[in-house]
């Protein structure tokens, strides 16, 4: 890789360093806080180890299947241009941010014993579908994660300079050759990171695993942590289990970063690729078939959420709208925070990578840690740390925004770091040779290449934060609620139809926020 002589300035140390310190505090710091606060000591039982095994197996299966489906989907989206393409890309953000309970009911509306498919096959005398068990857990996780993986790969495809495709066309390359020379190297760079993200996401899920897993066989580490804190008040075991999640994360993270080979594409002029090679009918047919199937799989459950919620949506009590406002504010703040932290960390990592590759690799893994962190441990740990000094209610908003930002950091970092590396490689040198410094250098050379990924990751962070129900439960003051909290309160008061209305509102607002940020990143920049 070509390196410029950009120095590490104090600002990189201060901003990047404090972002890292914050991450470590939220992840390892909270575990230590729990450990220190523990009143009983205990060790892991055989049942705990069975739980750990189940957690890993289902996460591996979910990640592999999601990626295997996402690659052809992303390729279809990348090489086809059709009406509704943008719409599909935007709506694809939706499953990812659904609160577990909404997603489960949506998935069951399609795949359940009284779901659409069961009703359909009943006409042919076939018994109701029974997805409960390992299959159900993986199905739900694949539903959640295909969109994320697809978006990451679409980004990957658009990172291949269009000039490469033109050259390939001039050389008369077949689709097969393009795959070998352009697409496969890109996949090798993107796939390991995407795999890691999904694997980690599936590790810390537990409401889904429980509801569709059919019973305690399908217990994940996260439930064991929940049990340790809520049921046994065994903070020692909770922190042990949390450490195991971190160790898993670090191990898998290290392997994927070693496997991933960075892309070495030359610099291009930022234009949309035209794919002459893929005009053949057979490619057309495969692409559109895949897209149709994936869209059905993703959008049918969403449609059921829409059908269920559309009528109650118009009669929701006013408290819901206040909760919606709170959620939007928290989401916007945490999106901003998440992006700032990612940019600071990326700039820091890139500069360190030039001197010490190992250090920067370790830092990259640290960026993933929050994904492996249990929201319960973070919430409880922060509570233990702050409670002696300040009322939890007073810091509900900043804490929620902060933790949500940290939780979405692995995604933003995954999107922003490669984009910034490319920008530094391609335009950084140019900027240096023009004698550009600090702010101007960032504004003219780097920022135009970061806008899209920043918009995308801000959208993702905002949407994730909208759906989150982690720390807010511990810190929320009596008069403050967020939409997911509101939805749970409605459900536990038998208000199932109002809850469906809130679920629809939640999905709509999240998708809207995602769309606004994502579009913001697409505003034309001045370098053409």
């Amino acid at each position, binding site marked *: 890789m070509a390196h410029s002589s950009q120095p590490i300035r104090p600002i990189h140390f201060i901003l990047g360093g404090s972002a890292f310190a914050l991450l470590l505090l939220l992840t390892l710091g909270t575990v230590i806080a729990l450990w220190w606060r523990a009143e009983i000591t205990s060790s892991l039982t055989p049942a705990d180890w069975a739980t750990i095994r189940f957690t890993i197996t289902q996460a591996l299966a979910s990640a592999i299947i999601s990626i295997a489906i996402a690659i052809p989907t992303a390729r279809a989206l990348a090489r086809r241009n059709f009406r509704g393409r943008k719409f599909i890309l935007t709506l694809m953000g939706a499953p990812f941010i659904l609160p577990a309970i909404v997603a489960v009911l949506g998935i069951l509306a399609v795949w359940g014993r009284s779901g659409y498919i069961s009703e359909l096959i009943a006409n042919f005398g076939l018994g109701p579908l029974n997805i409960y068990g390992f299959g159900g857990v993986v199905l739900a996780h694949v539903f959640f994660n295909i969109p994320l993986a697809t978006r990451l790969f679409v980004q990957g495809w658009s990172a291949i300079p269009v000039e490469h495709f033109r050259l390939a066309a001039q050389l008369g390359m077949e689709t097969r050759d393009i795959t070998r020379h352009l697409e496969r190297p890109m996949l090798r760079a993107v796939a390991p990171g995407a795999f890691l993200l999904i694997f980690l996401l599936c590790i810390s899920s537990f409401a889904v695993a429980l*509801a569709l897993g059919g019973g305690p066989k399908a217990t994940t580490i996260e439930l064991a942590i929940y049990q340790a804190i*809520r049921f046994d008040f065994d903070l020692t075991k909770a922190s042990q289990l949390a450490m195991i999640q971190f160790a898993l994360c670090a191990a898998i993270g290290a392997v994927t970063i070693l496997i991933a080979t960075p892309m070495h594409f030359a610099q291009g002029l930022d234009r949309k690729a035209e794919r002459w090679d893929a005009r053949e009918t057979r490619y057309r047919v495969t692409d559109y078939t895949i897209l149709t199937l994936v869209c059905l799989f993703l959008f049918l459950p969403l449609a059921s959420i829409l059908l269920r919620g559309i009528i109650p949506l118009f009669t929701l009590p006013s408290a819901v709208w206040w909760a919606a406002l709170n959620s939007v504010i928290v989401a916007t703040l945490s999106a901003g925070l998440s992006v700032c932290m990612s940019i600071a960390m990326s700039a820091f990592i890139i500069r360190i990578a030039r001197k010490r590759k190992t250090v920067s690799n370790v830092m990259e893994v640290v960026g993933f840690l929050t994904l492996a962190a249990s929201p319960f441990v973070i919430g*409880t740990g922060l509570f233990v740390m702050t409670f002696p000094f300040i009322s939890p209610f007073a810091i509900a908003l900043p804490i929620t925004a902060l933790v949500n930002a940290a939780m979405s950091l692995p995604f933003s970092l995954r999107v922003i770091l490669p984009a910034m590396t490319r920008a530094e490689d391609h335009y950084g040198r140019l900027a240096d040779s023009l004698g550009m410094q600090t702010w101007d250098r960032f504004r003219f050379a780097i920022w135009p290449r970061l806008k899209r990924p920043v918009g995308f990751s801000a959208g993702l962070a905002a949407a994730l934060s909208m759906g989150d129900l982690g720390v807010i*439960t511990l810190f*929320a*003051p009596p*008069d403050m609620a967020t939409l997911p909290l509101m939805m749970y309160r*409605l*459900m536990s008061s*038998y208000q199932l139809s109002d809850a469906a209305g809130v679920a629809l509102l939640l999905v709509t607002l999240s998708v809207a926020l995602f769309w606004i940020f994502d579009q913001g990143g697409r505003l034309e920049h001045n370098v053409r």
Partner: protein
Amino acid sequence: MTKFITLAAGLTLAFATTAHAQDKPELTVYTYDSFVSDWGPGPSVEKAFEEICECDLKLVGAGDGAALLTRMQLEGARSEADVVLGLDTNLTVRAAATGLFAPYANRPATLDVPTDWTDETFLPYDWGYFAFVYDNTKLKNAPDSFEALIAMPNDFKIVIQDPRSSTPGLGLLLWVEEAYGERAPEIWAGLAPKILTVTKGWSEAYGMFTDGEADMVLSYTTSPAYHIIAEEDQSKSAASFKEGHYMQIEVAGKLAATDQPELADAFLDFMTSSAFQSIIPTTNWMYPAVFPTDGLPAGFEQLITPVDSLIIPADKAEQARDKALAEWLTALSR
């Protein structure tokens, strides 16, 4: 950047709205989320108590029922809470052992709770029976015991909650334990093929049931009352089991470290008065601990009355819980 900071500061202030509104003494009551929601008893209770107490009642939703005790253990004596409302009898001994709670002397002479109440610290405010709820338009002959449920055909499915994360889930565990004792593992093994799935909380399970995923769901005998009274829907019934039904008694207690001991006592007095008790049936959908003088709301008379009220004494609940959980895990993990 400065603009952003100003904005952030403004927003933070906007959130801290009703902080120091008045000089009235403030009573902080920690409870579970569904109690404080607009559809729960919270708003009416707050209004009724503030009319008589010259104080500001602050009801704080601290997560679900199981989270309450954890929250108190984490906060310890520094807690802002004066009263905790929403623990149940499975937790009272452990709660008392923390030493955080103070005795309450003014217990009413008679309580309409179907068990002798002798606890000196905690006072019940409502109670209910766990039961399986079904749709009586789809299911004509509901099982009338655990054994009848086991004998149902294998495509008959129930949804239950995980005892580690849900109060009804734990209730079912103790129900089987109390009704069957040594035979409990056998009952669980028989039930296993009927269990469609186990959810994290009551809401998921009840939602799956109303969506038609399962034939019966673990809930309360009083659940049909919600559908009858609030929705005028007669289609939901609770199955009456011959073994009797396990009870949940929900209690409140005063914290030893409270800075408002008199107000806290006044709140507990108020809790068993008819002003509070008449709110409970149609908001918390449970039986009040002291029946209002004009009786229960119309619709409650349609509910089943269990032949036998089962409950494991509070001092044995903890031990029974650990044993029953181990049996449950073994039976369902096969």
